[in-house]
């Protein structure tokens, strides 16, 4: 596979959220505001790209028995960087994201990509795969949070787009809407997928 194929494959064809249903904890939790989703997505892209890169570099020297632990520690180190950066530069957003930044470590996407791709491929390819997978994740987050923020607050990225006539749907701010929207999202994509296959 060439570099472009790797990227497209990771971002769309094998998209972690809608094809593999991985990493949806944070996809549900941070999508009440678009800005939160964007920051979270960028954080995941950063961690995925660099963790994949590092795991790929040391893949030939990692004993199989401690592989999982080594991968987790590498991922955790990059997550700490993201967390410290957010705390220092965007304290407000860091507070809103709360534990979900730290929870990138246990996000199944990270382990999934490390196992499925980085432990078998070269560093550069792995990095591209990481960026692609992270981008696919970010797109889903932004799509869900677009609907939730628009209907829940009448805003997009904090800018008022729906006028004063708009009544906010408080359900969009609450937890159940996240489940419903993600389900509908998966439904649409899967129907399309089965149609394309048939």
């Amino acid at each position, binding site marked *: 596979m060439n570099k472009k194929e790797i990227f497209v494959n990771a971002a769309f064809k094998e998209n972690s959220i809608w094809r593999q*249903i991985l990493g949806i*904890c944070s996809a549900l939790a941070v999508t009440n505001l678009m800005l939160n989703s964007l920051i979270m997505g960028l954080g995941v892209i950063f961690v995925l790209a660099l963790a994949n890169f590092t795991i790929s570099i040391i893949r030939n020297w990692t004993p199989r028995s401690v592989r999982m632990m080594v991968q987790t520690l590498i991922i955790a*180190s990059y*997550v*700490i960087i993201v967390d410290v950066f957010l705390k220092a530069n965007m304290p407000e957003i860091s507070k809103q994201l709360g534990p979900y930044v*730290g929870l990138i470590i246990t996000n199944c996407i990270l382990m999934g990509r490390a196992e499925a791709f980085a432990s078998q491929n070269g560093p550069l390819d792995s990095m591209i795969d990481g960026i692609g997978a992270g981008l696919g994740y970010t797109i889903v987050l932004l799509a869900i949070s677009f609907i939730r923020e628009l209907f829940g607050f009448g805003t997009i990225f904090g800018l008022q787009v729906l006028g004063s006539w708009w009544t906010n749907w408080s359900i969009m701010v609450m*937890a159940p*809407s996240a489940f419903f929207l993600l389900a509908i999202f998966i*439904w649409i994509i*899967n129907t399309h997928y089965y149609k394309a296959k048939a």
Partner: protein
Amino acid sequence: MDINAFVLFWAAIFTSNILLTNFLGMCSYLSVSRELESALGLGTAVIIVLTVTSALNWVVYHYLLVPFGIVYLQFIVFIIVIAAFVQFLELLIERYAPALYYTLGIFLPLITVNCAIFGVSLFMVIRDYNFIQSVAFGAGSGIGWLLAIMMLAGIRRKLKEKLVPIGLRGAGISLIITGIMALGFVGFSGIVQIQ
């Protein structure tokens, strides 16, 4: 945080259910909810691990990380504590209760990557709970998680013979069921507020 530990325990089960309002532990929740028996096994394991690791992590955080000024290492340390405890529990069960090992032990490796465990430890630090509160919150969250996965497993068993649109099969319909369950749990939310 000044809140009664007993109240916190009930709040963790109903008003701020770890899965239905905080979305934690979704991966294993969706994948292990096909059978009631395995849901019960995993749920029980989650209760045990959550209760013990929230206690362990509280001690580690307040007596190791804070005095040495290395709070920024909390993610790594918490993960190691959780992984080590799960490994230890697995060995213990295998050695002393082989029968239990086949119903419970097989789920233990899954738990290390269950974000509910790690998430509860992080919530405990962010909300500044004391020791008793942390244990109550951990146990309550575990029971809340068991409740959620058992409900889903029960509904999915009934759903087996029903016709579901092809695109919704599997994860899609489970998420919709979970959404309806979460909607039901919103009804509890006025009772006590801990967030």
